[in-house]
């Protein structure tokens, strides 16, 4: 019986194997058809000739050129032969280069032989027919041997009969002086520099932005973060409100401060004063140690100081932006050749000002969330389960409504329903209902895995973003900021954020948990744990991933020019389209050199640090 079973299963097994093999054969056969596999083309003579030509061109990058001088060696020739046969023989100087034709006159279409003597050895050049009208026509190419002799058969062209002598010439080209860079080489140099800096900027911005994101996208840091239904609902309600208030506030402050904009000194003084106030009130509000649990009045006092510090920080950031813009503008004119420093300062100021509303919105949102969190915790501690449940239901209904309304607002922006019923009323109703149901089901004090949810959402967004090719992003960026390296930098930076945040977060996930536990046990909070236990462990992999990414970005920025993103790609594509393969070869060479040296430098840096 058992034996039977075994036999059966072995037959089944071999059948299955056979089927698998059959299926894979079919799959690959289909793949051949789909991808148009046709090796006959690879053997076709025409194509091989073309390929050879292109490869030979690519092997000779048009890097340098020489100044050349041309010397024409000529001999008179009569076309047609004169009637009276009176032709002056010219004595050839046997010490100098000269050419000689087999006959000194001929009719059109006749073939004659041209010989050259005492020419430079081993050179190539054209043999021309110089008509009486001064028009040149190339008849053939000559190539001298090691003794400076050549012989070549040429066909006499059809020309109007002329009585006087015309000429057959051989042109000797000699290079003089030192080699010079070609225009292609110069343009390539400019563009490769641009390429490296696109990569540098994209990597820097991408790294800076992806480090904080990587912590949010790390499972081991997020999975333990939970919050109770009360706090969660309050957070969902609180953040948009806080963010909106922050946005309005920052706009108002910027408007308020705008009269200062003109005056450098007033701005500087304002910057110093606001910075000082921010620093002092921060010191007041955040004592370096608190041994005892602080009393309520002390806590309120601290809160006020921190609030003042926050406001002053926002003001000083704005003033900083204004100040750098003013200074940058002035310096750009003064500094002359290094005016780009001023330009950079101006841009930094501008970026700062641009970011202020966003930063303020997030900060205000954060403040409101942390306040609401405290409220939520105290509600939970002080109320009995039944009342808490009712409050939870109320809060989560509102939270659901707000959440759905916000999500729908984004969707509405894309699809423009222009119908409040679809874009507002229904989402509010559905969201409110969902929140209501959730709150009814959930235990009022049971913590929700908010950390895990945030982790999942972040990961999903990163994965989606990462799957979009930088080339596609560059196309969109070009639409936004116009053709040029800035578009390329933006596209690459965005892609870098997505890619690096994922790589980084995987590093965070693979760190040793022990130190984390130990630092936690000392009473450190989340932030301190990250600074003291997580960051020291991830520095080496972060550096090596950043270098690796720079490497990728350099390679990416070489082709991002294909779609108008600046860098060397534009030149490369242009030359390929113009069939100037020798020029394209220069760009390819430059890319190879840069990528190889990046590789070398990054491995050296990694060795040093890791």
């Amino acid at each position, binding site marked *: 019986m058992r034996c039977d079973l075994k036999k059966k299963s072995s037959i089944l097994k071999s059948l299955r194997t056979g089927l698998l093999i059959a299926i894979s054969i079919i799959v690959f056969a289909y793949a051949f058809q789909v991808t148009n596999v046709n090796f006959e083309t690879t053997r076709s003579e025409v194509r091989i000739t073309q390929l050879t030509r292109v490869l030979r061109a690519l092997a000779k990058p048009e890097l340098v050129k020489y100044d050349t001088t041309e010397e024409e060696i000529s001999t008179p020739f009569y076309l047609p032969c004169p009637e009276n046969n009176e032709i002056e023989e010219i004595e050839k100087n046997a010490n100098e280069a000269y050419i000689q034709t087999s006959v000194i006159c001929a009719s059109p279409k006749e073939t004659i032989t041209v010989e050259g003597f005492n020419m430079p050895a081993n050179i190539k050049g054209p043999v021309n027919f110089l008509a009486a009208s001064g028009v040149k026509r190339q008849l053939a190419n000559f190539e001298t041997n090691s003794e400076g002799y050549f012989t070549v058969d040429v066909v006499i062209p059809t020309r109007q009969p002329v009585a006087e002598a015309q000429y057959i010439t051989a042109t000797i080209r000699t290079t003089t002086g030192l080699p010079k860079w070609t225009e292609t080489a110069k343009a390539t140099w400019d563009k490769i520099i641009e390429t490296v800096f696109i990569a540098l900027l994209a990597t820097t911005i991408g790294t800076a932005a992806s480090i904080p994101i990587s912590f949010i996208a790390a499972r081991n840091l997020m999975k333990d973060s939970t919050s109770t239904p009360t706090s969660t609902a309050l957070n969902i309600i609180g953040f948009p409100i806080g963010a909106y208030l922050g946005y309005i506030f920052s706009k108002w402050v910027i408007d308020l401060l705008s009269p200062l904009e003109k005056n450098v000194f007033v701005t500087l003084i304002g910057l110093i004063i606001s910075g000082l106030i921010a620093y002092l009130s*921060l010191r007041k509000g*955040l*004592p*370096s*140690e*608190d*041994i005892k*649990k602080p009393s309520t009045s002390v806590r309120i006092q601290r809160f006020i100081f921190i609030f003042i510090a926050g406001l002053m920080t926002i003001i000083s950031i704005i003033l900083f932006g204004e100040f750098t813009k003013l200074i940058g503008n002035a310096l750009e004119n003064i500094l002359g050749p290094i005016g780009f420093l001023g330009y950079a300062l101006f841009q930094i100021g501008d970026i700062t000002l641009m970011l202020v509303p966003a930063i303020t919105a997030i900060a205000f949102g954060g403040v409101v969330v942390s306040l609401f969190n405290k409220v939520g*915790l105290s509600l939970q*501690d002080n109320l009995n389960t039944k009342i808490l449940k009712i409050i939870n239901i109320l809060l989560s209904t509102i939270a659901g409504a707000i959440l759905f309304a916000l999500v729908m607002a984004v969707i509405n922006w894309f699809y423009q329903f222009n119908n409040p019923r679809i874009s507002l009323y229904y989402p509010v109703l559905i969201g409110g209902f969902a929140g209501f149901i959730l709150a009814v089901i959930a235990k009022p004090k049971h913590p929700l895995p908010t950390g895990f949810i945030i982790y999942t959402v972040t990961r999903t967004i990163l994965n989606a973003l990462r799957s979009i090719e930088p080339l596609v992003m560059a196309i969109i960026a070009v639409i936004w900021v116009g053709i040029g390296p800035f578009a390329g930098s933006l596209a690459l930076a965005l892609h870098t954020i997505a890619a690096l945040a994922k790589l980084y977060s995987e590093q965070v996930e693979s760190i*040793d948990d*022990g*130190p984390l*536990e*130990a*630092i*936690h*046990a*000392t*009473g*450190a*909070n989340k*932030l*301190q744990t990250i*600074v*003291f*236990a997580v960051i*020291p*462990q991830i*520095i*080496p992999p972060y550096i090596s991933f950043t270098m690796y990414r720079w490497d990728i970005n350099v390679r990416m920025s070489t082709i991002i020019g294909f779609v108008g993103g600046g860098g060397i790609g534009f030149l490369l594509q242009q030359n390929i389209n113009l069939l100037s393969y020798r020029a394209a070869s220069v760009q390819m060479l430059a890319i190879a050199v840069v990528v190889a040296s990046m590789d070398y430098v990054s491995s050296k840096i990694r060795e040093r640090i890791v």
Partner: protein
Amino acid sequence: MLEIINLTKVYEGNVQALDNVSFNVQPGEFLAVIGLSGSGKSTLLRCINRLVEPTNGEVIWDGVDVTKAGPDELRRIRRQIGMIFQHFNLVERSKVLTNVLAGRLGYTNPAMSLVNRFSKSDVEMAYKQLERVGITDQANKRADELSGGQQQRVSIARAMMQNPKIILADEPVASLDPVLAHSIMQYLEKINKEDGVTIICSLHFLDLVHRYANRAIALNAGVLMFDGAPKEIDDGKFKEIYGKEAERVG
């Protein structure tokens, strides 16, 4: 000082790590926790400072229920409870001094520690603690350059930075050789006797328990099997704690 009442921990997948464990710890005690691997010793220690969230029961510390403490309260409780681990759990790439200073984090303002800044008095204290465990000269080395025994001494210094009232030691000598084990245990003893710090220490070897502890509790599959003086552990008790087939070594 520390009162554990009906502490129960069930891990995901219905693994019962602690089952209704109750006991008291008096100030100044050196309490050993014994039991087989997997009997719940580590879980018990971690439930006290809530590195592991207990499923049920109470941990009363200085009259406050730790299991119900909010984040701020928990921070204040944790910083009075030092902890030492089997694998030292130092941040290996950081300097020894930084590792020791990390013990001060519970007292330091998070905003200040963001930029890695500690007060002068904290730094002085760190050097004092390093001197106490005899490795002042290693202060500026990276933690992973130190030997196992030295690393455990660093982690004792780190725990002492907390000005702890109690130290939880989770098999502090299990990955050290016997000579080093005794030296580490002597440091703990010294802290216990001189500073009056209560110590709860899980141990594998009974001779260490006899030598250093003045009380022992035993766990078997999460159940408290024994609570008394170490010398009361006779052969009968031993079999009860470690199972019928166990034999005494050392």
